[in-house]
């Protein structure tokens, strides 16, 4: 019974990782940029949702604004920070991205204060019980939106014209352009979708912990990196699988290995093992 609970808890954690990491892998797949500032957008999403919910009393309104504004912020980051340096070697964009993340963390501290901020009336706190497992509504909601978004991305990329253009751009941008795909539109759309997912994850984590703090992006920043490496950089299915696997491994590891390795150490031990045996990524055939 405990093991079943640990499995479910691992899946809950895994879906949060997935929401952040899938966005990151989308950006990497398209532009070969390790977009660390993605974690800053995760924090921004949490802050906007929480502050607006506290102002207006409606979490739904806060979440909607958060998703929209952070999506636009992601597009702005692409336009202002990455587009001018796309012809530079990849590490240039990486350095820019790390710098951006640090700036964002400090701006949160300056604007919103160094301490935590909590919901006045935390939403989604009800308990849902099934088969003896108790989950909070926020955990179920997190899983639901993750399925919605990630499933949506899957359908979008395989079943629609936008998706075809998207994948064509990933495979060969020049060829795609010669077939009339507007590269910039695809990239804007990509950043928008990725940022929307990060904002949703940030808002859900804010509800789950009932707080936002300037450093809340720190853990997702490096865990999502580990996950997209395990997933095989740019591979959405692999990233999803790696995120869920990591959530479950951490869940069991916290209980059975907690006195030897902490949660992060477990994550990186898993990463090292994956890289030793499947350096191309968990699901990538090669």
């Amino acid at each position, binding site marked *: *019974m*405990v093991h079943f*609970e*640990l499995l479910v*808890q*691992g899946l*809950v*954690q895994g879906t*949060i990782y997935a929401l952040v990491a899938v966005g990151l892998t989308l950006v990497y797949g398209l532009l070969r940029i390790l977009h660390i500032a993605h974690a800053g957008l995760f924090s921004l999403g949490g802050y906007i949702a929480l502050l607006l919910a506290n102002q207006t009393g409606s979490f739904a309104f806060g979440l909607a604004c958060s998703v929209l504004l952070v999506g636009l912020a992601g597009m702005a980051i692409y336009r202002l920070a990455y587009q001018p340096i796309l012809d530079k070697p990849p590490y240039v964009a990486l350095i820019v991205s790390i710098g951006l993340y640090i700036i964002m963390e*400090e701006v949160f*501290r300056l604007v919103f204060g*160094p*301490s*935590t901020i*909590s919901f006045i009336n*935390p939403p989604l*706190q009800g*308990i849902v019980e099934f088969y003896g497992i*108790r989950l*909070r509504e926020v*955990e179920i909601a997190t899983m639901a939106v993750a399925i919605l978004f990630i499933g949506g991305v899957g359908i979008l990329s395989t079943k629609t014209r936008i998706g075809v253009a998207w994948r064509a751009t990933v495979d060969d941008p020049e060829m795609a352009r010669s077939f009339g795909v507007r590269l910039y539109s695809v990239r804007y759309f990509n950043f928008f979708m990725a940022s929307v997912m990060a904002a949703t994850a940030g808002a859900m*984590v804010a509800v*789950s*912990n*009932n*707080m936002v*703090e300037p*450093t809340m992006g*720190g*853990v997702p920043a490096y865990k999502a990196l580990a996950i997209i490496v395990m997933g095989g950089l740019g591979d959405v299915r692999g990233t999803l699988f790696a995120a869920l696997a990591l959530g479950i491994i*951490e*869940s*069991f590891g*916290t*209980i059975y290995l*907690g*006195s030897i390795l*902490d*949660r*992060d150490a477990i994550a990186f031990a898993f990463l090292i093992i994956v890289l030793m045996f499947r350096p191309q990524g968990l699901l990538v055939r090669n």
Partner: protein
Amino acid sequence: MSKNLRIGFTAAAVALALTSSVRAADVVKIGVNVPQTGFAAADGKSALTGIQLAVEKANANNGINGKQIELIVYDDQASPKNSVPIATKLANKDKVAVAISGSYSSPTRAAAGVFQRSKVPYISAFAVHPDITRAGNYVFRTSFVAEVQGRAAAKLVGQDLGKKRVVITVLKNDYGKALAAGFNSVAAKYGIEVVNSYEYSIKDRQFGPIVSSIKNDNPDAIFDTGYWFVSAALVSQLRAGDVKAQIVGQEGYDGEKFIEIAKGAAEGVIITTSLDRDSADADVKAFMTAFKAKAGYAADMVGASGNTAARVAIAALRAAKSTDHEAVRNAIAAVKVDAVTGKISFNALGEVFKNVQVQIVKDGAWHRHSIIDDPELLAPPSK
């Protein structure tokens, strides 16, 4: 830049340099390392507010025998890699008469060695690791050493609350581990059976797996050694997971923020700490009022501890009638001060004996639960 402007700037710079050197002779400098950015910035703000209140009060009352106190404050981000250069700077460049740590165990422990080598007196306001005062005879602590507080928690859980099956959740750093060690050292004496113990990192906010496992352990009480910003999430998730065991925390929970985050789940949580909100003492009441006015939120353990450490420094500087480091050190060692966290006097190791205040969350605020005053149990280490 025009020539006039350049002359103007030069003159201003010279004037500033002159006034600061004149001022330097008229002031007594107290150095402070405190986290102002990073994860511990909120506690840093409380500590610094407490220190500033003590200094403002002293400056309004003739300062240090006529000289005003100047605080030299640096941000250590609660990290030893920052606190060491800060300590070096305070001791050698700023030449402070005495220094105060308004920071956590790891940075304080690292800085203590530097101050000891430079023979600059150093007072730790609320860091709990036992090795801090063992750096040498220039290092003092005005708060509980972790093992004392851990022992007090064991008495509280096993004897006063009568809870025997206990799970310990340990924050994996100097602070959390030292508290758990103190608890474990006397748990058996109070009939406590530690049925399981879990460790977590300061970055953890999702405790689902630990909650599931604790539910399976079915303890009477849970002793947790985390800070409020980690443990508020743990406590909320324990209650959401239908774990009904009594939760016992410690100083790290102390403050309004814990209740603000954990909301209803905070009700009934009991902690060991050093600030009694329901104190009838006029000095404590005045401090609580002044703190709230200055900081904008209610006084907490960290603020009260910062205030206590600063009062000790000020009393010693006044008694020493000099800023000579050895004279100040000897004055601190001999100090007897009434502070907001209790009466302060040091043993040979530079540790204090104080009663442990047990506080409980009732109707969304911290209130007095009981006081632990067993002199044998609370005796700090003396070597």
